[in-house]
């Protein structure tokens, strides 16, 4: 019993320390967004930087959404002579290929690329299609996204700075009314972009390239070895290699692009699982290399490690809960004194609240005043995500131990109705920011 209490204490203190560091990071990001200093952005030069660009749109069984994204890209106010759109049909078994071909026939800047063999997954599709790219800048959009009219110009503007290797735009869910989960995820997305990404960019830390609604300088992409087809999160992988070589990742908050978020928990769990496994793979591959890089500042290195290890907060949190459960029910005065209890409860309140503070700040910045009332229900999402992340990490390490390194790419399911296929849900009038 004594040994169990000692182990529990050590686990709890370690968890408190680990999560307190993350909490501090969240608080810094949240409060920095209220700083009176003007955020870093490149809106002043939008439209003045118009290099030749290639837009890659990988699609796998995307007949429901393929026409929307291509139509939206065509409608962007970028000079057609400097625009190349490569619509990638990655071994689709539905009508995606036919839709792409129809667009390619109608518009000269659209090229169809049908992939029928080779390894599956987005990174492999990007790698193959990148060989056709002729633009200085390669932009990426997932098939379920709706880029706005000025999107391409906004994303390209930061590349005026030669230090910038990649640019990330903001992802905004459009189907927030689809389910409670979608509403909660929209709060999370807002916190991640409006707060986290912008704060990291403002503070000169490591903004993250997210693999969609973003772009990469082709020379930088080639210099770091192209897309890593072994990674489930090719975007994080590329971010790490760019940072390691001294390239900067820029973030454009105003470049808002609309996406579908999962409306059902099983879909979200699969998405989360892919992210966790891929992200953790990057942690093992790049954490040491980034720390040793001479091209990053001390704070950038620390932030990069925090970013890569972010999913570790879930198992550490569970460890802290279990340890505190043991200590609580052991109920001996020496094992659970005032200071220990204060620390435990303090960590429960402050560490857990930190992420919620970010959600609130992002909602305040966005003006999502009604949706923020969902915040207490986010505990359900928080709880479910914690378990899903722990499960994914367990699978990751189990595969490493057993030597089964092959991770299967699982596409996130789309929920757009068939009746809506080929038509943007925004047609007929946009709505305000608090959907």
């Amino acid at each position, binding site marked *: 019993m004594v040994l169990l209490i000692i182990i529990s204490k050590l686990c709890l203190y370690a968890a408190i320390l680990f999560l307190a560091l993350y909490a501090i990071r969240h608080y810094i990001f949240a*409060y920095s967004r*209220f*700083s*009176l200093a003007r955020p870093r952005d490149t809106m002043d030069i939008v439209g003045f930087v118009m290099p030749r660009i290639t837009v890659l749109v990988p699609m796998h069984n995307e*007949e429901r959404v*393929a*026409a929307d994204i291509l139509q939206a890209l065509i*409608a962007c*106010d970028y000079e057609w002579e400097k625009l190349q759109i490569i619509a990638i049909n990655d071994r689709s078994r539905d009508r995606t290929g036919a839709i792409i071909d*129809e667009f390619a026939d109608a518009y000269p800047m659209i090229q169809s690329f049908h992939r029928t063999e080779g390894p599956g997954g987005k990174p492999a599709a990007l790698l193959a299609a990148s060989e056709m790219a002729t633009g200085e800048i390669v932009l990426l959009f997932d098939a379920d996204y*709706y880029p*706005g*009219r000025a999107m391409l110009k906004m994303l390209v503007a930061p590349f005026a700075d030669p230090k910038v290797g990649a640019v990330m735009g903001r992802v*905004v869910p459009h189907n927030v009314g689809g389910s409670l*989960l979608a509403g909660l995820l929209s709060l999370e997305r807002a916190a991640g972009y409006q707060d986290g990404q912008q704060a990291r960019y403002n503070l000169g830390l490591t903004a993250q390239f997210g693999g969609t609604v973003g772009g990469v300088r082709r020379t930088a992409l080639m210099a770091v070895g192209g897309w890593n087809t072994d990674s489930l999160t090719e975007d994080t992988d590329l971010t790490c290699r760019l940072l390691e070589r001294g390239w900067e990742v820029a973030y454009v*908050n*105003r470049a808002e692009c*609309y996406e579908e978020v999962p409306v059902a*928990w*099983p879909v979200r769990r699969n998405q989360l699982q892919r992210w966790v496994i891929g992200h953790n793979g990057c942690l093992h591959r790049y954490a040491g290399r980034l720390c040793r890089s001479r091209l990053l500042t001390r704070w950038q290195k620390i932030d990069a490690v925090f970013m890569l290890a972010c999913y570790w907060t879930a198992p550490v949190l569970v460890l802290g809960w279990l340890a505190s459960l043991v200590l609580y029910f052991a109920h001996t005065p020496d094992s*659970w*004194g*005032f200071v220990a*209890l*204060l620390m435990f*409860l*303090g960590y*429960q*309140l*402050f560490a857990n*609240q930190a992420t*919620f*503070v970010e959600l*609130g*700040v992002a*909602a*305040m*910045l966005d*003006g*999502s*005043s*009604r949706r*923020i*009332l969902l*915040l*207490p229900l*986010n*505990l*359900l999402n928080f*709880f*479910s995500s914690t*378990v*899903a992340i722990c499960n994914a990490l367990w699978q990751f390490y189990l595969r490493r131990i057993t030597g089964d390194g092959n991770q299967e790419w699982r596409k996130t399911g789309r929920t757009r109705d*068939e009746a809506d296929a*080929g038509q943007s849900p*925004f047609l007929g009038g*946009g709505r*305000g*920011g*608090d959907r």
Partner: protein
Amino acid sequence: MGFRFRVRPEGAARSNSLLPRRASIYPHRSVRFIALTRRRGVLAMVAALILCLIIGFNSFDLFQLHARIAAFFLNAAHIPVSGWQYVEIFPGLGPSLAAETSVPLFRDLPPLASAVFIILFVVLLVVAQRVALTRNFALFLAFLLICSAVSMVLDPNFRFSSSEFTQIWLRNEICIWMLLPWVSVTLFVMLQQSFAKGLGWMLLLETYAIFSSALRMAFSHAVMHYTGMLFFPLLWFAIGLLSNLLYVLLFYSISVHRTSLKAWGSRA
């Protein structure tokens, strides 16, 4: 099944005003009136320290108030209180009066308690089965119930007296009360447009914490009076720890909602 897209006529203007854009995409006038200054930060910390000290130095009186409120609810629920006794909370943080109510042993539990236990367990399993988002949460609560039942079976004589439960409860709560001012600094005082409003939220949260703690403790006493220790872990987690987190979040979401309305006006 089909798809539709429009091919732009030759020479037509390249515009598509129907493409998705939010009504507003970036704060211009909205939140700049929140003066997140060092001075405000220092003042907020000082306010939190003062409130924390007030709670610490007046803990005895607060415990008395807490006991009185709990007694009111126990009386209202017709829970027989056989007496009151002082229990030590933490050295230096005054003793508290604890109501003495009977807590039956496992073997003395009425059949109704077992029935409630089984019904609750089944309900949790059904919720876990039907609502995917709540699955893990419901299963965790069910796990707590199982832990409780197993420990009862293994040690049928195990129980906390009502005064011991009060002691466990108040040890948690006094820490929460002393932490809440600091939590309020980050959640309310720094993020409200006026410092006074932030302080208002801080005091409101503190008051609610004390009041709701007494109510939740009285409820737990009532449950234990009828069902013994069967639901103890569930009460400790759901009515205790989780409730604290939940009402803090609720207050925070309401305050952000109000601030956002103020900031964005009719656009929000």
